[in-house]
């Protein structure tokens, strides 16, 4: 087979050939432009929003950042908040890569949270590691099954998954709400919550009163695994090709149905685990609003990260810091914490519009220069 031809004598890929030092510096600078641009937009927006409320912008922002990342405890809290979101965002990204727009993250998170809450409360107590594993596994299976079912509908019956996943959100969330308020309600509670899980189904806190638990390690492992699966592995290649061009994938022998269902299953499983983390690393039980909005956050962050795992993780971290900072700002001023959502909206639009904006500007400049020349 041609693989065995002596490669060593072949020229390396052309990239390696041309890279003098200063051009790489310039390339780095060019790469930094988008980041700086969005940062600047975010900062300007923040200043406006804070000043509009009658506060000094800089000290207020600093106070917020101090609250979010000021010391180890703050960082731990901010990170703890972001953990489930990271997992969910990676899950959504994974499906996006195979062209499956899993807008149903919210529903899958709820399904996973419910599954973990029930496993944690009605099974056990038992050895912690095992119990936690069981919780995560069950929620992964439940979230995965939901998503895989929707993926199957798309792959085999051609049911548009954008709409089916969107609708599944409401169906699942309302069904979970029904379970939590009626048959599976904790009788000791006045509102719609399930029973508390056993202590053995809770992650242990790493830093006291930060909610940063050993779930961190689970998330790190999941990050690594997802990155490998999506970007490096053969399966990831098949999924990406399916997303890129289903016709190409089919013609070159990739099982498109399997890729679609498989990627949805893993995507749903990750969302399910995100839900499980909400229970086992934080709430200790399911309640009707346990993950409100996380699914949509994940969808948005996955899109803005263009479904690339590393970029998704970075975006989630930035987002977490912003949310946390806004909570801090709310405590020291009357600036509503909704500011963070306004900011992130602005930043995302700025990031996606940047290229277009620059082309428009360049166009204007050209037109100007041309008119000068005439």
């Amino acid at each position, binding site marked *: 087979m041609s693989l065995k031809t002596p490669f060593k004598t072949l020229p390396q890929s052309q990239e390696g050939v041309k890279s003098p030092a200063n051009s790489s510096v310039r390339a780095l600078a060019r790469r930094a432009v988008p980041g700086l641009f969005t940062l600047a937009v975010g900062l300007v927006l923040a200043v406006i929003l804070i000043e509009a409320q009658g506060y000094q912008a800089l000290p207020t922002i600093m106070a917020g950042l101090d609250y979010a990342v000021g010391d180890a405890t703050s960082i731990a809290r901010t990170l703890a908040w972001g953990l489930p979101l990271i997992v969910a965002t990676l899950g959504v990204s994974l499906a996006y890569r195979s062209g499956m727009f899993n807008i149903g993250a919210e529903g899958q998170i709820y399904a996973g949270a419910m599954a973990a809450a029930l496993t944690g409360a009605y099974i056990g107590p038992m050895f912690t590691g095992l119990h936690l594993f069981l919780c995560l596994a069950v929620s992964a299976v439940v979230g995965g099954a939901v998503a895989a079912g929707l993926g199957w509908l798309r792959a085999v019956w051609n049911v548009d998954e*954008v709409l*089916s996943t969107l*609708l*599944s959100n*409401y169906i699942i969330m309302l069904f979970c709400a029904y379970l939590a308020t009626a048959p599976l309600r904790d009788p000791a509670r006045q509102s719609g919550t399930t029973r508390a899980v056993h202590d053995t189904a809770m992650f242990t806190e790493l830093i006291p009163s930060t909610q940063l638990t050993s779930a961190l390690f689970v998330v790190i492992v999941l990050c690594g695994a997802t990155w490998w699966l999506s970007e490096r592995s053969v399966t990831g290649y098949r999924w990406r090709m399916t997303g890129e061009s289903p016709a190409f994938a089919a013609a070159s022998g990739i099982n498109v149905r399997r890729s679609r269902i498989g990627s949805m299953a893993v995507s749903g499983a990750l969302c399910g685990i995100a839900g499980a983390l909400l229970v086992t690393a934080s709430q200790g039980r399911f309640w009707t609003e346990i993950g409100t909005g996380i699914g949509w956050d994940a969808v*948005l962050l996955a899109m803005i990260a263009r479904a690339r795992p590393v970029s998704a993780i970075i975006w989630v971290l930035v987002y977490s810091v912003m949310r946390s900072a806004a909570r801090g700002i709310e405590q020291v001023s009357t600036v509503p914490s909704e*500011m963070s959502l306004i900011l992130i909206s602005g930043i*995302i*639009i700025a990031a996606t519009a940047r290229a*277009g904006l620059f082309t428009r500007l360049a166009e204007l400049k050209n037109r100007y220069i041309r008119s000068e020349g005439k």
Partner: protein
Amino acid sequence: MELLNSFLGSGVRLTTPILLAALACLPTQWTKDLNVGLEGAMLFGAFGGVVFGLAFGSGFAAVTLTIAAGILSGLVFGWMITRLNVNVFIAGIVLNIFAGAATVYLLRSLFGVKGTLSAPGIPSLPTYRIPFIDGVPILGPILSGHTVLTYLSWVIVAVALFAVKNTVLVRHLKAAGEHPAALAAAGGNVQRMRILAQVWCFALCAIAGAQLSIGQLTLFTEGMTNGLGFVALAAVIFCRGRVLLLTMMSVVFGLASAVAIQVNDEVIPPQIAQMLPYLIAFIGLVVLARTSKDGGVRIATPTMES
């Protein structure tokens, strides 16, 4: 009979904002720039209705100014997705999130309140009782006693049905979506069509929102659209560009919500009843994909490239 009347009246009222939002979204589906930000646009509309209503003390002024603001926002949104190449799907989701946050922020900044803005100064749109029909069982609650915006939504349906058949504009809108290069090569203006669709979308969402805040109620509540935008979106995706089907779906959703409200919690738990519109849409989607040739065609394709 009383129960039926109340159910029908309720159904019509609940249908109105869904129908308006769905009609708003329709042209954006024709131009293949499906605006998924209906929820957000409606929320701004509802907010605008109350703010302008308070400022000018008249329902008419409130609706007019809200529509004007909608048109302006539509221009900006359209400019972003056409000239700045912002992905319309991302922009739509961002709009939803942005509207939720910005209305809260503004509510606080402008009025210093949280949650609900309810003031005696907020005007409400009058309802019209049609003299003879009003008392007729079934027909009465359907035809009589609604706000001008409800009747407007029916007029828009009729106009849309007519326009699809007989206007050049709708043809260009559809061409801009189905084969933009063809329209451009034939001398049409693709960008103008795409922007126009968004302007229409925002203007009608403004009306839908105003119907919520000063038509049905006379107050504004944070997040008062409560998922209506997504229900409307489902109707739009479902109808595949056809006005009549869109109208039917909106009515079905409206009636399903009415059922959910009227049914007793001992018969069906409220959560399950609330699920109804979504379940209907879901099952309909599957049936559509199985039975019709274009059922499987996806229309809402978010794209990932930058």
